[in-house]
Structures are given as structure tokens and as C-alpha cells.
């Protein structure tokens, strides 16, 4: 199959859906001539005009609210928050408006909007431009939270998110933009709310998101050399979370490790661990569930400090090894 970068896969998804569906339009800061801070929207303004690829002032609350209002009146807006960190400025519109308008109005309104959120560390962007905020939004009923880790998933999930009648938070990782992978040319969707087993193994179940899926796969190779076979599951959608493959896997392996970049305390890992313990898999656990996550701190600037603030391949290898060897 043809290979595309994660970034180009997203661009292609937007291009294809805009050509097909007049209701879809884009808005965000510097997404027009500039092509988006990370180049995702690229030439789309040239192609679809300024009315459908709308460059906005630096007004995250209004960008988000504009998505809500447009969605309420029949459009399918795709907003871009330049750095996911800036979603902090959109919180009211997301948490008190987008997520619950439908419910408050007795299920009689729909808010089919997508907010694209480039996030994550590893670029030296320091404390206000490197965060991972996905777990904040899994705590908001009414929002869906999607976090693709491959170009294939990026395209399929973005198209699914745009089709979805609910507000969808679409977390992209800056380090993934340049990663390549097979992407079909035609339009396709990947169902929201379906976890995927990306590697099979018998000794340990790793549940990893976004860039941590790549790092876990790399760690898995090293562990395999030691005779440790890990199974890796990428939930892809954090909310609604598909636990079924995770539970099945843990029943097989008896051990679980959740890996994410966002800080550990109150993170997605806690949610996954909680659900595992509540599930049938509980009786099959033969070790404590472990979480490997970002340190409870802002992302530092210094390259080495930044590297150590979030899980890396060697941390995953070591933690996996310890779990399998029964250290915990």
C-alpha cells in the first residue's frame, strides 16, 4: 500500500471530506496561507477558499464557540487549536457548551464538531507548548476523545470524527506528524470506540496511546530478544473506551502496564487500571497493574530533562521486564 506521513494522512482526510461534504469547513489560527502551524491544512485554503478554510484571530474561546454555533446550525466544523495547550482557553465552550448542549436541550440538538489538538513533548517547546491534556476531556461526558497513533488511524479516525454527531476531541502528536505508514487512497473510517491489538504476546499487556504505541512497539522488540512477549493494545479512542480487547488480553497475560505521555496523577492510566480492576480480568491479575506516564510536572526545556519527563523506550523495557519478572 502507498505510504503517507501522519500529517499528510490528516491533510488528505480533510481534503477528501471537504470535496465531498459542503457542511465541512475548517477554522483556526494560521491554517490558511500559512497552512497550519504544523502544516496539516497546507494548501486547503487555496483549494476551498477563505470561507471554508477560515483563518481566525487568536481567540481560542471564540474558535471553539464558533464550532459549537456552526454545528448547532447544521455545519460540520473542524477547528484547529494550534497547540493543544491552548485548549485551556476553550474550556468553557467545550465543557459547559459543546459537551452538554445536547443533553440540556433534552437530546434535541446535535453538535457535530471536531477540534484538532496537536500536543505532546519532544520538540523543545517547553512548558506551555508541550502538554498532553487528553485525560481532562475523558472526564467530560458528551465529548468523545480520539488519539490516533498511526497515519492509517489518523485518516480513518479523522473522517469518522467528522461524521460523528458528537463533539470529538482529536489529539494529534507533534512527533508523529512525520512518521510514515500505509494509508489507502480512498476515504475510509475507523470506528470511534474500538481498541486495537497492535502486537500479540503472552507475557504482559501494554495499553499505550499515541506516540507511546510506537515506543512500546520498539520496546517490545527488545523485550522479545529477552524472551518476553508483550501484547500491545492501542485504544485509539479514549472515550468511549473499548475495554473488551484489553480485558481479553489481561485474562491471557495476567499482567498490565498502561503507558501514556500525559502526567500520571489523575491520568488515563488510572481510568484504564480502574476499569481492569472492575472487570472480569481482575481475577486473572497476577501482578499489580502498573502505569508508566509523564512525571507530575510541566515539560522542561532542557533536552535531557525533557527526555526524562516522559516515558521512553528504555523505561518501557525496564518496567515491562520488572512486571514480568515479578518485581512488583
Amino acid at each position, binding site marked *: 500500500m502507498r505510504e503517507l506521513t501522519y500529517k499528510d494522512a490528516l491533510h488528505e482526510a480533510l481534503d477528501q471530506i471537504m470535496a465531498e461534504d459542503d457542511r465541512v469547513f475548517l477554522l483556526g489560527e494560521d491554517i490558511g496561507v500559512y497552512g497550519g502551524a504544523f502544516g496539516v491544512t497546507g494548501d486547503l485554503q487555496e483549494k476551498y477558499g477563505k470561507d471554508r478554510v477560515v483563518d481566525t484571530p487568536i481567540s481560542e474561546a471564540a474558535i471553539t464557540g464558533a464550532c459549537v454555533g456552526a454545528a448547532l446550525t447544521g455545519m460540520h466544523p473542524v477547528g484547529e487549536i494550534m497547540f493543544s495547550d491552548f485548549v485551556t482557553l476553550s474550556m468553557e465552550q467545550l465543557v459547559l457548551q459543546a459537551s452538554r448542549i445536547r443533553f440540556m436541550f433534552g437530546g434535541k440538538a446535535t453538535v457535530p464538531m471536531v477540534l484538532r489538538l496537536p500536543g505532546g513533548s519532544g520538540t523543545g517547546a517547553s512548558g506551555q507548548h508541550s502538554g498532553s491534556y487528553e485525560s481532562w476531556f475523558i472526564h467530560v461526558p458528551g465529548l468523545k476523545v480520539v488519539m490516533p497513533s498511526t497515519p492509517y488511524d489518523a485518516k480513518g479516525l479523522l473522517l469518522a470524527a467528522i461524521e460523528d454527531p458528537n463533539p470529538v476531541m482529536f489529539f494529534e502528536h507533534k512527533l508523529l506528524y512525520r512518521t510514515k505508514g500505509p494509508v489507502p487512497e480512498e476515504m475510509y473510517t475507523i470506528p470511534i470506540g474500538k481498541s486495537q491489538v497492535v502486537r500479540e504476546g503472552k507475557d504482559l499487556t501494554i495499553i499505550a496511546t499515541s506516540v507511546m504505541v510506537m515506543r512500546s512497539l520498539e520496546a517490545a522488540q527488545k523485550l522479545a530478544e529477552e524472551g518476553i512477549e508483550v501484547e500491545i493494545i492501542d485504544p485509539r479512542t479514549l472515550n468511549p473506551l473499548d475495554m473488551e480487547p484489553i480485558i481479553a488480553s489481561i485474562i491471557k497475560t*495476567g499482567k498490565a502496564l498502561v503507558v501514556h505521555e500525559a502526567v500520571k496523577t489523575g491520568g488515563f492510566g488510572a481510568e484504564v487500571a480502574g476499569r481492569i480492576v472492575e472487570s472480569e480480568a*481482575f*481475577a*486473572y*491479575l*497476577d*501482578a499489580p497493574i502498573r502505569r508508566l506516564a509523564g512525571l507530575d510536572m510541566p515539560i522542561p526545556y532542557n533536552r535531557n530533562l525533557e527526555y526524562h519527563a516522559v516515558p521512553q523506550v528504555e523505561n518501557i523495557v525496564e518496567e515491562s521486564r520488572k512486571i514480568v519478572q*515479578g*518485581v*512488583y
Partner: protein
Amino acid sequence: MAKEVIMPKFGFTQEESEIIEWLKKEGETVEKGDPIATVSTDKLSMEVEAPERGILAGIRYKEGDVVLVTKIIATILQPGEVLPKKNAEPETQKIEKDEPSKPEKGIEVSATPVALHMLKDAGIDATTVQGSGAGGKITKADVKAYLSQKSTDRHGGKVAATPAARRAADEIDIDLTSIAGSGPLGRIQEKDVKAAASHIVQAIPPTIPAEAPRIPLKGMRRIIAEKMTCSAHEIPHLTLQMDIDMSDAVALREQVARQVTGKDIKFTYTALITQAAARALTRHPKLNSSLDGDEIVLLPCVHIGVAVAVEEGLMVPVVRDADKKGVYQLSNEIATLAVKARTNKLIPQDLEGATFTISNLGMYGIDRFTAIINPPQTGILAVGNIVEKFMPDAKRNPILKPIMTITLSADHRVVDGAEAAEFLQDIKTGLENAGATTV
């Protein structure tokens, strides 16, 4: 090859040990792991174990000598070996201490090296652990029990176990308090429960009278214990059972008995079964194989190990090329080997190279049983007694027939049920048509 016995270093800061007692004498045969000497370190009395099976020779230090750690203290020789000259005399050693090191009085604790290690790792004061070994010696099991008890005590009598271990214990119906945990802080893991379950028949009842006689697990008993544990843990056992109509075999044996009365010619069922099994093995080579890493090695010859019960356990002398031998020859060979086994006259070659094992407990009145595979073999056939049973005849009317139940245990990693069943069927066909057997 001669193997040197060195003064072990038991502790991090330990430099020397005093030899308290030689537990074996020169010329005595020792098994690997047998304690051969008691030595003392600062606080503990420890045992030096034989690093190899063989004959103890070349003891260099007498009791009371203080020896630097890592120095050679004796040598283990294999039969026929002589003591290398350099191993004959004590090494010169300087102990640059004013006083010879003596064990401190009052706090002497005795423990096995493994136990000591475990105590160190867990940071436990050895004096707080109750030893169950000879003379109150602390064993590995004691430390495990202590750790598990400790974690139990910490939480008001609750047992630390993983959910998987609890589920397994529930399924097998085994009490978690009777299991020592191998996990952190003595937590019981699923594998601990499974191990305990595999020993459940030998499980020691919770209250043991102090005066109960104790037989040390050593020598052959110990080897059997280790081998069987290893096999039971590592090999997924596939077991299949089959009833065999022995009418033909019984008739044949009676016929032979009539023909050869007075002559020194034997005809045993074991031999008949051995022959049937050996010939079936040539047609089912996977049962006559050995698992070597990722490969199944199909063995070129069929050598049948025939289990013989002896006083300290079980010996399995080997009948070579059993598939090529007649029943008389097999009967005689097996009888000879059994006598050698019981009179302790087997030579190592008699015990080597079996590719398959037959264990017949029929003569003990056992109707059927399941045996544990003797690795690296792939199968073992457990043979029961011949019992008269009413069986249906061709018209489904009851007819009394001599029936023998054989049970095959096979390594499931190597063979599947259908293959193993075909093998058993093959043996059955052989035995049920024993009239056609080459005598």
C-alpha cells in the same frame, strides 16, 4: 572430572569461615547438593554443599581450621579419577588477624545457603526465623513461610495473594494459607498455587507432631523429586487411557508356560507390553522423540526404560533396541536388569539412553494410574493390573475378559491427542493379537 570444593562466601563482608564439622568422609559418595561440611561465619552456622555428584576426596583442612573464603577445601572425584597432586595439600594462607575468628556465642543460627541469601535479600534478621531443618536449621521453605507469614501479620491475618492466585486457589479448592508466596513480600502468585496443587497429594497436614519421623530428601529420592517436579511444571502432560482385552496375551502366556515347563525361560506381560510398545514406537516416531529447544528430535533407536521399584525409589534400567527383540529375550533382559537394580549392581550404561518409559504397577494390584514423563523423553506408559471384567462380546452379551488399562502420558508440546491415541491403538492391536507375536 574432578571438581574442587571451595569455602563459600556467604556474606558480603565475610572473609573467612571456621570448619566446624566434616559431615562426609573421604571416599564417601556424595550427591550434588549434599551437605559435606558445617562451617561457621560470624553469626551463622552454614553448610558447604557438594558441587557435584561423586566421591569426596582430598580434604585439606581439619575441623577447627579457619579458612579464607574461596579457598579449596576438598575435591569431588568421579569413579576412576585420582586426586590431582595440587589438590592434595592445604593452600598456604595468611590470616592477618590477631585472633582466630570464632562464632559468637548465643546468637548462632544455622541456615542453608539459599535460605541465607533470601534472608539477606529480604533484610530479615535470621534469629527471628524458626528453622524446620535438622537441628533447627533454617531452610528455603522456612524463609518463604516466614515472609508469607510476615505479610500476613502486617494486615491482620490476611493472606497476600494476587487476584489470579485467589481465583486459581478457588478453582482447585486449596487453602491459600497453606501456600508459600514467591512474589514480593511473600505474595502468593498464580504459579505458587499451581505448584502447590501439583503437590497437593503430598501436602503436609497443617499440624505436624514434633516427634514425627523425618526422612531427609537426599540422594536418589532428591533427584527423583527434582526431576518429577521439573517435569510436572514444565511439560504439559497429555494423558490418554485405553482398555486392552488381554485374552490373547493370557492365552499365549499359558501356552508358553505349558510348552516350556521346567526350562529357565521367562515370559512376562511386561516384556509383551514392552515389545508391543516398542514396535508401535517405530510406527509413531514422534512418541519416540526428544524436544530440544524449538526442535523435535526423532530418535533413531527405540530404547525402553522399564521402571523398577527399589528400596529408595525407582530405577529405570534400559532395554536397548526393544523393537528388534523377541518376547523371551525381552523377558530375560528385563528380569536381569530388575535383579541388578534391586541388588544395586546396575552400571551407569544400564540406566542411560531410554527413549520411552514403561511403568508397570500391575503386580501391585493397581488397576490404572498416570505417570509423569521422564524428560527428555516424550512419553511414558503406565500399565495397570489385568482384571477380569464382564465385557460385551460381538453380540453385546456380557463375557468375562481379562482387561488391562494402559495410560499414556505424552508431552503435549510434541504430540496431540489424535496422534497419541493412534499410538495407543497400535499397542492395543499388538496386544490383542498377541497370538501372532514373534515369541
